[in-house]
């Protein structure tokens, strides 16, 4: 087995992968951009290699620089994390040429499933139900308009190269189609290097339910049950949980079998996720396959007790799956909240800056996968995810209460976060009842503004702070007092 792994990512996922490597006795190599010098994921590794300037194209998306970093550091394997190059076949191809192990599926599988339209064709052939819509992409405005008319509005405009909610728009009427296409194509080109779009029927109020799959190089594939990921803003998940409150044992078995069939149809190897939409009648439709570790994989780890990164590394090293489908028995309930640096009162605008205060919750049943700490910079160049907070408990209601307690004690200052919004989702009676659909936020929390519940207390706290910690003293605008912020220590390396 390889004994040194380069982690081609940043933030919480780089740290999460690193920890499993350390536990397996594997040496670790971090890579970083100029904006991330001194970031926690850099500090914790055995070696660290600078890739280039902050812009992703020059650093975390720079295949040549990453391969060079692996060769210079002596790493024999590369873990891509999620995002960046995780679903770009160019990285596994370059790995193969350089004699490095890519920890993920083969390039050809990524390429096929990365084309969402090719994946739809493949699944239809394999007998997995797909959402009504186009099976090939189209760049012609007039044809898109005809296809949309045939499907019936509202339709969903999607990027062939898409994933993670990027380059995707709901189009309610013919009038919006042209502008939406242009924006989507631009986002898609930027995010995936591929502006091609296609259309799907927009299902009314579905649930997003996905299945974790694992497949080894010996032809064995299993699923690790589902994740319910319907709570989304901008088509991106912010809360995920398992099990899904809507699944019966019978439906879970049918969807799980479809997920395994989808994996096998694609010749899948390593960890992946088969996403479905589930309608109110219990009918499910193939959405896409994510050919990587998902952001939300911890909820599956909490209920199954498995370490998905360890399994990824084992599979990449050619080892067979150490269990069969019948050995998988999830326990309890897990909920994940993504802690994004965004302002939920301003349409979830990203909020880069410096984390001047970071007081994370702790306690039994909680797991925090964090990429930052007090004093960390949140650069504007990357995804605004700071951390993922996961609560496990024997049942959903206890997990919900545990998450609420944790969120209410999770103080982050210096940037805006969605924590106050997450509190209101978790506390909402419809969420408590398990009635979560992809239009949950639009339906229940549209135009959300911060509750003024604690406003009077905040005023009293302000008045006390004017006496206890005058503005000139301890907490300065540039970061915690008494020691340099990362901004100040950039370039502080001695040679």
């Amino acid at each position, binding site marked *: 087995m390889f004994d040194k792994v380069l982690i081609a990512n940043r933030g919480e996922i780089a740290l999460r992968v690193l920890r499993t490597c350390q536990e397996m006795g594997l040496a670790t190599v971090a890579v970083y951009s100029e904006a991330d010098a001194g970031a926690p994921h850099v500090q914790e590794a055995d070696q660290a290699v600078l890739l280039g300037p902050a812009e992703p194209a020059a650093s975390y998306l720079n295949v040549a620089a990453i391969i060079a970093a692996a060769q210079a550091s002596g790493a024999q394997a590369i873990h891509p994390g999620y995002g960046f190059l995780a679903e770009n076949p160019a990285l596994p191809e370059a790995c193969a040429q350089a004699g490095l192990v890519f920890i993920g599926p083969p390039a050809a599988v990524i390429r096929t499933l990365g084309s969402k339209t090719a994946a739809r064709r493949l699944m239809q052939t394999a007998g997995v139900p797909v959402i009504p819509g186009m099976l090939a992409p189209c760049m012609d405005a007039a044809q898109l308009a005809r296809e949309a008319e045939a499907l019936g509005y509202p339709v969903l405009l999607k990027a062939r190269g898409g994933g993670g909610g*990027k380059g995707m728009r709901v189009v309610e009427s013919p009038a919006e189609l042209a502008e939406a296409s242009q924006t989507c194509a*631009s*986002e898609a080109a*930027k*995010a995936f290097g591929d502006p091609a779009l296609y259309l799907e029927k927009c299902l009314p109020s579905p649930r997003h339910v996905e299945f974790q799959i694992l497949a080894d190089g010996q032809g064995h594939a299993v699923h690790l049950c589902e994740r319910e990921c319907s709570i989304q803003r*901008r088509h991106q998940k912010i809360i995920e949980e398992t099990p899904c409150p809507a699944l019966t044992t019978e439906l879970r078995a049918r969807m799980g079998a479809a997920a395994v069939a989808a994996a096998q149809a694609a010749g899948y190897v390593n960890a992946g996720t088969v996403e479905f939409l589930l309608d109110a009648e219990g009918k499910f439709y193939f959405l896409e396959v994510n050919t990587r570790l998902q952001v939300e994989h911890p909820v599956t780890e909490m209920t199954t007790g498995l370490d998905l990164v360890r399994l990824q590394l084992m599979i990449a090293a050619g080892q067979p799956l150490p269990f069969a489908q019948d050995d998988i028995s999830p326990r309890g309930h897990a909920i994940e909240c993504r802690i994004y*640096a965004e302002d939920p009162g*301003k349409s979830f*605008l*990203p*909020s*880069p800056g410096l984390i*001047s*205060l970071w*007081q994370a919750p702790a306690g039994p049943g909680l797991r925090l996968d964090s990429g930052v700490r007090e004093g960390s910079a949140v650069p*504007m*160049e990357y*995804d*605004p995810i700071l951390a993922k907070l996961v609560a496990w408990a024997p049942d959903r209601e206890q997990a919900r209460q545990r998450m*609420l307690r944790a*969120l*209410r*004690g*999770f*103080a*982050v*200052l*210096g940037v805006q976060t969605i*924590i*106050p919004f997450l*509190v209101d989702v978790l506390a909402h009676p419809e969420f408590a009842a398990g009635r979560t659909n992809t239009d949950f936020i639009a339906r229940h929390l549209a135009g959300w*503004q*911060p*509750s*003024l*519940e*604690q*406003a*009077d*207390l*905040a*005023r*009293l*706290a*302000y*008045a*006390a*702070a*004017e*006496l*206890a*910690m005058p*503005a000139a003293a*301890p*907490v*300065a*605008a540039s970061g*915690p*007092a*008494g020691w340099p912020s990362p901004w100040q220590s950039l370039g502080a390396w001695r040679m």
Partner: protein
Amino acid sequence: MIKYHLRIGEESKEVALDPATGRAGLDGQEHELSWQQTGPGRLLLNLDGRQVRAFLAPAAGGRQVFIEGRSYLVQDEQKLPRRGRGGAGEAAGVVTPPTPAVVVRILVQEGQAVDQGQGLVVVSAMKMETTLCAPYAGIVSKINTSLEAKVAPGEVLVEIVEAEQ
């Protein structure tokens, strides 16, 4: 008694606090308030016998305050310049990005007539694109930015001469 006029969102309230006794007044109610700094930016309040953990950091024109899952910008009216109330970047009628961002598309030209709400510039931050729109109808008098430019809140990217109504 020290008096503060403290704004959160649109609402200002007077808070009176006697530093010697901890007696505090708010909304016509009297309270007993004591406090202890427990770390940088961290205060443990005791309000009428109930403990409250408050977290504070300097922020635009005041302090950001986090209490029990809620986060507020609290501003002292006396310390606010007249124009800046409500925080940076929110001054009406100014085309400025809401966060540090990069300009990815410019949709108008100097001299062009625009409607209220019409898209002017598209900026990108953390992979999300945002369209900055015209705050009122008028004529674009000046474009102060260019493609790929790094821009920050407060920078006026497009100037518009308001159309007479």
